């Protein structure tokens, strides 16, 4: 009875007040303005209110996949089609097969939205790659690679730092056109990845030769491409529509399709990325949501997409509008788009990126021969694609867990001292517990429960929202380094060794630099002491993600201040992230900068607690400064520093931000530490939460063992 009453009330309330639709996107600048205007128009025409949310790109995908299944997500969201398969498997998108009028859009953009014969979402705009030609340097845009090579030879002057071509060659997205141009295919008929083919080897060889002949600079980033093109030092650039916004007004340029490979006669075929308005499967107002999504993909909304959005619309009719026809960029890209192939939205595709990036960078850095790179990529591909382990029977595990709990309880029971009345043993128990209760409840709910869930996840295999119990299979795979050699970066043991080295070197540097500075600062009569201390604390006060991005910039090969400083001393610029040693060093330098102030402050406090007369006594005994340091300072500092050292080592061991943002694991994941590896398994390799959880459990045990050992070593006073 009561329930029915509630339901009626609920229904009537929701019918009365129609909730505004929620639309999430990751647009900025002109694109954001365009979507805002389009939504305003939609509201004016239909009366349906829409709430917009611009989400930082980094958090967008995880926000969607967490929010929608919990009914906390948007009704409509805008995302590139590559993730569609993933969204489909997580059941967060609604089908639009019967709603989309295929004739209104470029066929390829609709195809891109197809999963298992069903359509999802409405195509909005497309992104692809074209050749940007500086018309003052190149009059006839090359149409074949032979012409291209001729132009490159003509326009390149390495001594003047002038290049014929610049593009982010280390990015597989930009290399893909070459793969297809040389006749290679990423997948065979059955959809299996085929990365080790002659065409692939040729594509690697071609690009490598461009770099070797000095036609394009090494280690190119987006920022470098931009500055080279704007300064007229790169005659041609391969990039996408977003690049048009980066070009300065003074530069005259044309956009043309990528050339045809003379050897094969095939065009360099770029990928086509389709941005689509996707409707949430959990929307409460499907009609309005679909209406909104459709509205955004057609008519007025498309016009806004062009201006101020600066996007290339997917709607065919848009190109008949006079303002679009007059826009040379849009029409050029339309031309380019007809030759592009949609990026496959399969799960296999999602797994190709990391191996191909590895192979590509290996080739460009000269570590791998072009004809061996394919094999390397293929092997990494197999390693990343763990097969689903066989299901295990959870019963023995539950039994073992119960036994362990029982055993622990018995042990605790036997361990406790002679039986004493509770009230006598704990006279203040009720007060103590009352004081602890709020914190204990908070930690219990928000730390311990997620922690327990995290640990139990390690016994499951996660596949698109489905969890299956696999027992210890994750651990076995990790510890036996299944699928790759122990000495390879993907191996747990390799990563563990890197992590231990990383932690050890960092902590040693933190402590020694911190202690050294503390000793310099110790003298209370030192002039400017307060000033020094304030300045030296600064690195601690800067949020560490800002620190990381800052140093990442400083290590840039061409623009980095570090290489600038080295050059001032006559040292060749170092390409920091292409070799393990330098990449690792870059991480260490960043983390040292960030971490020494903490140890300095702790050491300063500890030094002040050492009585001055001990030094005077030692002086009288004739001890040298060094002996005083060794025999007085160090032993007396130990008890004060040790807890901080343990804490510092735990922090460093799990210092995700620095690794992820500075080296990003380069080269080829070699500088990844255990946490960043776990992160990759969880969020970049098809949400293998179970496997990542197993990594985390192992991290946990390593740290637990480490703190146990240090406590034992440090003796009872620190325990």
């Amino acid at each position, binding site marked *: 009875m009561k329930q029915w009453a509630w339901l009626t009330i609920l229904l009537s309330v929701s019918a009365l007040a129609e909730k505004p639709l929620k639309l999430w996107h990751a647009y900025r600048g002109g694109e954001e303005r365009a979507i805002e205007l389009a939504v305003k128009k939609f509201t004016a025409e239909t009366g349906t209110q829409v709430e917009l949310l611009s989400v930082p790109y980094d958090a967008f995908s995880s926000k969607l996949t967490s929010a929608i299944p919990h009914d906390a997500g948007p009704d409509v969201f805008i995302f590139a089609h590559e993730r569609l398969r993933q969204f489909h498997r997580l059941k967060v998108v609604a089908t639009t097969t019967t709603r989309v009028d295929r004739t209104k859009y470029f066929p390829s953009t609709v195809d891109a939205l197809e999963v298992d014969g069903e359509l999802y979402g409405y195509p909005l705009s497309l992104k692809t790659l074209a050749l940007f030609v500086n018309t003052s340097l190149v009059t006839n845009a090359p149409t074949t690679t032979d012409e291209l090579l001729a132009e490159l030879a003509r326009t390149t002057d390495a001594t003047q730092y002038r290049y014929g071509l610049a593009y982010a060659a280390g990015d597989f997205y930009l290399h893909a056109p070459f793969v297809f141009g040389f006749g290679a295919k990423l997948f065979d008929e059955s959809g299996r990845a085929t990365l080790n083919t002659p065409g692939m080897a040729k594509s690697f060889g071609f690009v490598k030769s461009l770099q070797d002949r000095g036609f394009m600079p090494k280690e190119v980033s987006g920022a470098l491409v931009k500055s080279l093109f704007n300064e007229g030092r790169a005659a041609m650039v391969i990039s996408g529509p977003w690049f048009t916004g980066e070009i300065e007004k003074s530069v005259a340029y044309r956009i043309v399709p990528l050339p045809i490979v003379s050897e094969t006669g095939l065009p360099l075929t770029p990928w086509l990325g389709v941005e689509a308005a996707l409707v949430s499967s959990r929307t409460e107002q499907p009609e309005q949501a679909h209406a909104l999504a459709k509205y955004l993909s057609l008519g007025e909304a498309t016009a806004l997409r062009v201006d101020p959005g600066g996007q290339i619309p997917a709607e065919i009719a848009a190109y008949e509008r006079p303002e679009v026809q007059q826009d040379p960029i849009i029409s050029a890209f339309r031309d380019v788009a007809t030759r592009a192939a949609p990026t496959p939205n399969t799960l296999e595709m999602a797994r190709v990126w990391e191996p191909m990036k590895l192979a590509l960078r290996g080739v460009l850095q000269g570590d791998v021969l072009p004809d061996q790179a394919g094999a390397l990529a293929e092997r990494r591909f197999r390693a990343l694609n763990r097969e689903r382990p066989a299901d295990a029977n959870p019963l023995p595990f539950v039994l073992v867990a119960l036994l362990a709990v029982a055993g622990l309880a018995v042990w605790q029971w036997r361990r406790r*001292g*002679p039986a004493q009345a509770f009230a*006598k043993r704990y*006279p203040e128990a009720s007060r103590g517990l009352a004081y602890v209760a709020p914190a204990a409840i908070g930690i219990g709910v928000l730390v311990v429960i997620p922690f327990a869930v995290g640990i139990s996840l390690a016994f499951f295999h996660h596949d698109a929202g489905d969890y299956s119990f696999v027992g210890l299979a994750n651990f076995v795979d990790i510890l036996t380094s299944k699928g790759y050699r122990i000495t390879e970066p993907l191996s747990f043991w390799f990563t563990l060794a890197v992590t231990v080295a990383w932690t050890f070197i960092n902590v040693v540097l933190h402590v020694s630099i911190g202690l050294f500075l503390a000793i310099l600062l110790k003298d209370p009569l030192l002039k400017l002491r307060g000033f020094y201390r304030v300045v030296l604390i600064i690195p601690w006060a800067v949020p560490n993600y800002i620190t990381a991005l800052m140093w990442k910039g400083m290590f840039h090969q061409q623009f980095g201040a570090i290489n600038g400083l080295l050059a001032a001393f006559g040292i060749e610029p170092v390409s920091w992230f292409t070799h393990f040693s330098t990449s690792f060093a870059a991480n260490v330098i960043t983390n040292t900068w960030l971490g020494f102030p903490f140890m300095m402050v702790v050491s300063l406090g500890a030094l002040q607690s050492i009585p001055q007369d001990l030094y005077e006594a030692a002086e009288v005994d004739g001890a040298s400064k060094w002996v005083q340091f060794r025999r007085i300072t160090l032993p007396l500092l130990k008890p004060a520093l040790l807890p901080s050292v343990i804490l510092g080592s735990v922090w460093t061991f799990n210092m995700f931000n620095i690794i992820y943002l500075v080296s990003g694991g380069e080269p080829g994941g070699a500088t990844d530490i255990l946490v960043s590896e776990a992160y990759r398994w969880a969020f970049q390799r098809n949400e293998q939460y179970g496997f990542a959880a197993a990594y985390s459990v192992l991290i946990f045990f390593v740290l637990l063992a480490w703190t146990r050992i240090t406590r034992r070593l440090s003796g009872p006073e620190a325990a």
Partner: protein
Amino acid sequence: MKEGAKEPPGVTASSTLRAVSGLRLVGIRKSYGDNPVVKGVDLEVASGEFLVMVGPSGCGKTTLLRVIAGLEQVDSGQVLVDGKDMTSVPPRDRDVGMVFQSYALYPHMTVRENLAFGLELRKLPRADIEARVAEAARMLELAPLLERKPKALSGGQRQRVAMGRVIVRRPQLFLFDEPLSNLDTALRVQMRGELARLHRQLGVTMIYVTHDQVEAMTLATRVAVFNKGILQQLGAPLELYHRPANTFVATFLGSPSMNLFDARRDGATFVGTGFSLSATGDATGDVKLGLRPQDLLVSSDGPFSGEVEAVERLGFDGYAFVKTAAGPLTARFDGTLPVDVGQNVKVKPSGDVLHVFSPDGAKAHHHPEARR
């Protein structure tokens, strides 16, 4: 302190009522874990009394004081005040003040705030608080220091603030936990005097814990000697000195401490190793004999003889440490005599001075007639 004595200025009429109050401890037991520290203590303290609890460290005296304060819960036993059971009453409702060994002054408060803190907690009117603080400051000569933080005070000044903190609250019972142990000798003597003066002036009950027998002897109206968690003897200082209940009390009080010898009664004499003395009292068989160094004199003849091992000259007289056949012995000598290390001397008791104890030292059989 007798009833009807002249009240110190500022003490209210209620102190007359307090004067009839008394403290009684019944069968107090307390242990920490498996380690018993107080093993059943019964004790009565009359109002206005200055009771000093002495004993070596670890004898349970401080624990007992904390039990009285309410800082420790007893395992068994009762704390009665004016016949009322206060055993589980929290300290703030006990009307007790305590001076800690480390003074425990609040480092973040000025002297004034330290003094006023307890009164503020009791929500006294501001004017009252100021009056009382001013009074205590005058009494303890703290007036110029009121705005200072404890850090900026000398040891003696801190000590006085600690006392002032109790005085302002006017409790019926003052507790002191070795309050003078952190002071140098001269200050200690001075503060002893001040304490005695305060006691006279305030007319309240004071219980004072120390391991220093001089403080015990000079301050107390009665002394309680503790050892190993047990009350050994309770009485006026001189009574304890002259009539110790056992060898522990006998050796603990008095400096240098009492000489003890094993002996056997043989008719009218006590015979020990290498000496014999005429017997007093009626103990028979094995006994332990006690002789205070002050009652033994180095002279040309006497029952004890031996070689002088060390000499302490104090001017007018001195003490010689003599190795005798019965064991080491301390004796007084006239400061003008040429006593020297290595010399063979004889030692003679000066009259009826023999304390006779049971052979295990637990019981006293006989004491010399007290000389007053």
